[in-house]
């Protein structure tokens, strides 16, 4: 097995490319579990680790990561959790669904049907706390970010941009067009694992029953 090329990312972080999503997730979990790194952050195509420069010089950190990567990442068990996520589509919770439908030339109902059939998977959490980038959308959805980001997007909001579905675990500013809102809380501040979605979680959207 060939090892990925490791490059520096500033004075206290290292990066290597792992394009395959499952391998990337498995690697990130393996590196987190070692406890050797201050941070292990998967990106969309790579993994970055931050080291403690009070313990490591750049050279020893590089050697240590090479050593970590010499062990193959354990395969993720095939029984990845699938979370059924009830969603209210459109209306006040999905203010951009109408616009998106007009732009890509499908009916709102048709978009919803395709979303319910999409095998979504959380690629990574990032940007803001618990924001989940999910892959698995039909490629035909070409959707750009809002020209003017919203100051406040409610928690549970689901957004779409080309090729990706994004889920806001917490309220906050956001630039993704919003098509619906999950009726399940994705965040518990008091829990040691406060975010319901993790990288690797499979997500099945279902239509929420109207209140």
């Amino acid at each position, binding site marked *: 097995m060939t090892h990925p090329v490791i490059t520096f990312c*500033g004075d206290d972080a290292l990066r290597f490319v792992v394009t395959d999503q499952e391998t990337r997730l498995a690697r990130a979990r393996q590196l*987190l579990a070692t406890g050797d790194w201050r941070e292990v*952050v998967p*990106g969309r195509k790579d993994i970055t680790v931050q080291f403690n420069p*009070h313990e490591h010089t*750049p050279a020893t950190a590089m050697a240590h990561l090479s050593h970590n990567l010499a062990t193959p990442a354990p395969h993720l068990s095939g029984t990845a959790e699938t979370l059924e996520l009830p969603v209210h589509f459109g209306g006040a919770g999905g203010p951009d669904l109408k616009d998106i439908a007009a732009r890509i030339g499908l009916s709102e109902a048709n978009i919803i049907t395709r979303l319910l059939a999409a095998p979504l998977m959380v690629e990574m*959490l990032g940007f803001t*706390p618990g924001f989940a980038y999910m892959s698995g959308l039909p490629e035909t959805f070409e959707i750009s970010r809002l020209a003017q980001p919203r100051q406040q997007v409610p928690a549970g909001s689901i957004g779409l941009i080309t090729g990706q579905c994004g889920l806001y675990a917490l309220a906050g500013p956001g630039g993704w067009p919003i098509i619906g809102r999950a009726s399940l809380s994705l965040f518990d501040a008091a829990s040691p694992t406060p975010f319901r979605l993790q990288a690797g979680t499979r997500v099945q959207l279902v239509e929420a029953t109207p209140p």
Partner: protein
Amino acid sequence: MSLTILQPGVQMTLQGAPRVGHRHLGVPASGPADHLSMALANRLVGNASTATAIEVTFGGAAISFDKSVSFAITGAQSDLILAGRPVASHMTHFAQAGDTLRIEPARKGCRVYIAIAAALEAADFLGSTSTYLPAALGGRAGRALKPDDTVGFGGGRNVSGLATPRDLQPVCSNSYTLRAVEGPDYPAGAQGLWDSSFNVTQRASRMGIELEGDFPRSAECASRPSSAIFPGALQLPPGGRGFLLLADAQTTGGYPHILQVVRADRHLLGQVRPGDRIRFLHRTRQQATDALRAKQALLSSWLPDFFL
């Protein structure tokens, strides 16, 4: 036992330890923008370096104490007035019950730190009390402190007076020279980056500082798939202005990451204010490590539990 916020200034938040080890969940570090100054304030009142303290942006604030307690102030240069009398920064002081502490607008530097010889009450999230405003986490209900807020504290103490050794008092300026290494997206032929000085625009917050000046405009500078990003990174968005990331910076980003301010100098970023000038000094990674260890050695006898 509590203190009352009379005037919060531009922004007053509770900050404690950074949240380390949660960036893969999208959770930024937070914590004091200038963690060295906060550690120095805590030291003067006998607290741990990362004990919860108050961060005040630009000064211009006032608080009152309902019970006597020791306190200390560090960070941006401001005149300090306790019960009508001037007091000095970098020294332990004792407030009597009913005293008002005024912090005048900062003349130089950006953030003032108030440490109290007590445990300030703040919400814990993932093991840290630090406030992260964009997602309303930690601190006081995740928000900035406002007039009439009371912040409770337990076990208020009167500690014996200390002063920060003079050679350890950080100097605030209007012009900073920051040591930096090349970032992963350092553009070819960007020599000019090291010869220019950059102006800090009005767009400055705990997330980052915008810089204008002679940045490279190369075809390399296109967005790329989101990757991890950390405080100290200098990003170059398509608009042509640099964005230097601070404690509340997002965890991932797609803009080119052209420089990284070295860990040894990142505490200075918390004192940079709009209108200041910044230059970058080109360092190798090994030099960055050496600089960190040298500064750490200088601080360790006074701040044994603090790490840059």
